């Protein structure tokens, strides 16, 4: 097995000095001036130590490919691994482009998995470079960790990787790559965007017990999509929000869809893909009988206001809140850890109206009643 390691050395440097992220050279210089020190290499070492502790030194169990210096080599050497360096950054002041180039090189080298240390920005770069061609796993080291591609701790990342290398963990899940607009974040606004999905190893041990074997969430999602499609009528306009759960509905209908965009369907056909707010309102004028199908963004629970800003407060009001259909598998609800759904549209009064309890379609003739909070509280994992 081949593992590719990419460390974003500057990830997380802004956090300790209150800079809310390190995207951009200017911010990095500012962080250094303020006395920030790199922490990602040490976080990567912690994950690798777990690997070495269980599997012994590399060579016997797996081959480690990485980048020169602080982009991975240093972390590997710190736990007595002897990696093959396959990428060398042009300067010690590494950039997002270095992460992307390194990830592409890893793909060329046919690694089985890319292990990367960083934050949301790093996850975005890996995703931009290789998409879902190569499984990936994040070691949390950044300031912003909104994406669902990170293990809960460096040690947990190592643990998951051990399972992957030993063949105990075979299943993959599609995990959200999210990022906030840092400039807006520094002004005190949190505007998270959904950038895509990475394939991340999925440990069934984390969700499966001994007494009852549950069906996989994948099966549950298929059943959920079937029940939604069965209930659709041909005269209603359906506005389908982003996400893998909603994409399943489109796939089942044999329709093209945009994973990150908002799509409109009518009479079993696509009316428009990746529709902006203004166009949604225009379509609605022609087809006033409409329903909105949304799914909470995994791990965070935002129904509106993150990743689907096209479905604005104005649009929700125009469709009618009674026509909002929330879909989620029981497993997805459980992944919220008891936190309520969140709504953060541009319409504060609507946010308050939606707060309380909402019915969620969870499967065939199955619903859940789930709490909806409101406000833009930082719902980082």
């Amino acid at each position, binding site marked *: 097995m081949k593992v590719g390691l990419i460390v974003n050395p500057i990830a997380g440097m802004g956090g300790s000095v209150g800079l809310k992220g390190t995207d951009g050279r200017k911010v990095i210089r500012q962080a250094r001036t303020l006395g920030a020190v790199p922490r990602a290499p040490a976080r990567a070492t912690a994950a690798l130590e*777990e690997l070495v*502790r*269980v599997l012994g030194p590399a060579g016997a169990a797996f081959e480690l490919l990485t980048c020169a210096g602080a982009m991975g080599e240093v972390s590997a050497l710190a736990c007595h691994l002897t990696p093959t360096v396959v990428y060398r950054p042009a300067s010690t002041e590494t950039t997002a482009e270095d992460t992307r180039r390194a990830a592409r090189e890893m793909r060329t080298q046919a690694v089985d998995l890319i292990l990367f240390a960083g934050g949301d920005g790093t996850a975005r770069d890996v995703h931009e470079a290789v998409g879902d061609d190569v499984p990936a796993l994040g070691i949390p080291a950044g300031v912003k960790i909104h994406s669902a591609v990170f293990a*809960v*701790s460096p*040690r*947990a990342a*190592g*643990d998951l990787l051990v399972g992957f290398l030993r*063949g*105990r963990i*075979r299943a993959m899940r599609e995990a959200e790559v999210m990022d906030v607009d840092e400039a807006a974040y520094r002004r005190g606004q949190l505007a998270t965007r959904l950038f895509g999905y990475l394939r991340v190893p999925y440990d*069934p*041990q*984390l*969700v*499966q*017990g*001994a*007494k*009852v*074997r*549950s069906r*996989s969430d994948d099966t549950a999602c298929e059943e959920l999509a079937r029940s939604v499609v069965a209930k659709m009528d041909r005269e209603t306009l359906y506005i389908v929000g982003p996400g893998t759960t909603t994409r399943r509905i489109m796939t089942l209908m044999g329709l093209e869809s945009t994973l990150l965009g908002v799509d409109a369907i009518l009479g079993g056909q696509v009316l428009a893909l990746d529709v902006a707010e203004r166009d949604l309102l225009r379509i609605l004028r022609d087809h006033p009988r409409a329903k909105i199908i949304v799914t909470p963004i995994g791990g965070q629970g935002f129904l509106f206001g993150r990743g689907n800003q096209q479905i604005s407060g104005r649009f929700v009001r125009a469709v009618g809140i009674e026509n909002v259909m929330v879909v989620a598998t*029981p*497993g997805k*609800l*459980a992944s919220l*850890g*008891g936190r309520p759904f969140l709504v953060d549209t541009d319409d504060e009064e609507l946010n308050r109206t939606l707060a*309380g*309890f*909402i*019915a969620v379609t*969870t499967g065939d*003739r*199955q*619903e*859940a*009643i*789930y*709490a909806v909070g409101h406000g833009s509280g930082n719902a980082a994992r």
Partner: protein
Amino acid sequence: MSVDSGRKVTLREHFHQAAWNEPLIVELGRAGRRGVVPPDAGDELKSQVGDVLAGTPAGLRRRQPPMLPELSQPEVVRHYTRLSQMTLSNNVAVNLGLGTTTMKYNPLINEVLSRSPKLTELHPAQDESTVQGILELLYRFGEMLAEISGMDRFTFQPAGGSQGILANALMMRAHHAANGQASQRDEVITTIFSHPANAAAPATIGFKIITLYPGREGYPELDALKRAVSERTAGLMITNPEDTGIFNPQIAEFVRVVHEAGGLCAYDQANANGILGVTRARDAGFDMCQFNLHKTFSVPHGCMGGAVGATGVQKDLTAFLPSPTVEFDGSRYYLDSHRPASVGAIRSGLGNVHSVLKAYAWVRSLGAEGLREAAHMAVLNNNYLAAKVTAIRGASLSFADENPTRRLEQARYSWERLAAETGVHTMDVHNRMIDFGVQGYFTSHHPWLVPEPFTLEPAESYSQEELDEFAAVLERVSDEAYADPETVKTAPHRSTAAAPVPGAEEHPAMTWRAFQELRRQGLV
């Protein structure tokens, strides 16, 4: 809160369980080997009886003999004795970790009673006049459970909790049908911390299921219920206390809201061990309930005999009870099968009557005061154990911060911190604790709302020493997780635990032949 009994606990460091590496029985023996060879019937008998297969329709006849294991008698005896040595039965090990299952000591004298030929030689089809004794027992025990629950009539026909819940769902439907509302009222409301059968059983007969999720304090909020009820509501099927051991203090309000919407309320009392003699289903307004005699009422689970989902209803619903019912006319007991409004038979016969006998004997041996004391002891044991477990590094009680009220007879805990800090997961802890000669624990029903869960239920029959031992084992495994996680993650070392074949999670096989087929397809 911390408790210290001041007693030093000695762990069973040298415990070692038999590990026979025993193959499956289908992999043993040899072709043609027989355990019993019956003598040939002889020509005379054959000619008298004729063709014994003549009455069997051709389509039902096997074309080839079944592929049964072919073993000698001693091979069979050794095989099953070895398997028995690889389990930890209730009679061998402290078994208080199977939360929601109420594993208590079941007095062995009751086994003697239920194995008496006076019971074992009875047949369900015998004339009523010849089985007056067992009919009287069923009738009287029904009256006792009516007193315990506040309901009016009981049936013992359902052979398990889920079947009892199914009986209640069927009676719910029959009630609405009698009011001409069967098709309108097609929704059953339950909660995610109720036993999953409360969703599954009504779903199997076509109800739509609405599940309430817990609020901040660990139990569902009244406003969530109000959002769920409507003119479509058939009823509420709920456990209380729920799996978390938290008692919903608003339960009477829940019942009122459902009644106002026109629905019925069914109380799944599988978790009744902490409330016997303390509170009653009917007093909270419930219309129907079911007790699991194989849990609360001291009937052994599974291998020691069938289960009973004793199902009771208030008087307006008695016409819908499964048939037949046991009746008494002042001088004799009889079975009534002519009940046109009944939902019919849930299963054949009168249910697992030998288990009803054990429960009857247990209740009679304790009396009313004894039942209440058992409930108090179960709650005391649980809270004593909770104080010890929550003091263990890496462990926490679910909803402890948001809801500090005491748990009743069981509690759901989490190893979330342990997992984050050591990489040791709840099933790893489970697999290590059995190395110390105690039973493993139950994690949680699905989905896992509480991460890295484990659920403990120390019933009234465990001593303080046993509680201390169990807590000390958990503490030892936690210490090991921090010092040497690999030992925990590669456990068991001195015990046996079955690990599923890779792939079996996604492709379970229920028979040997199905397994062979999956293997042929490369799926397992």
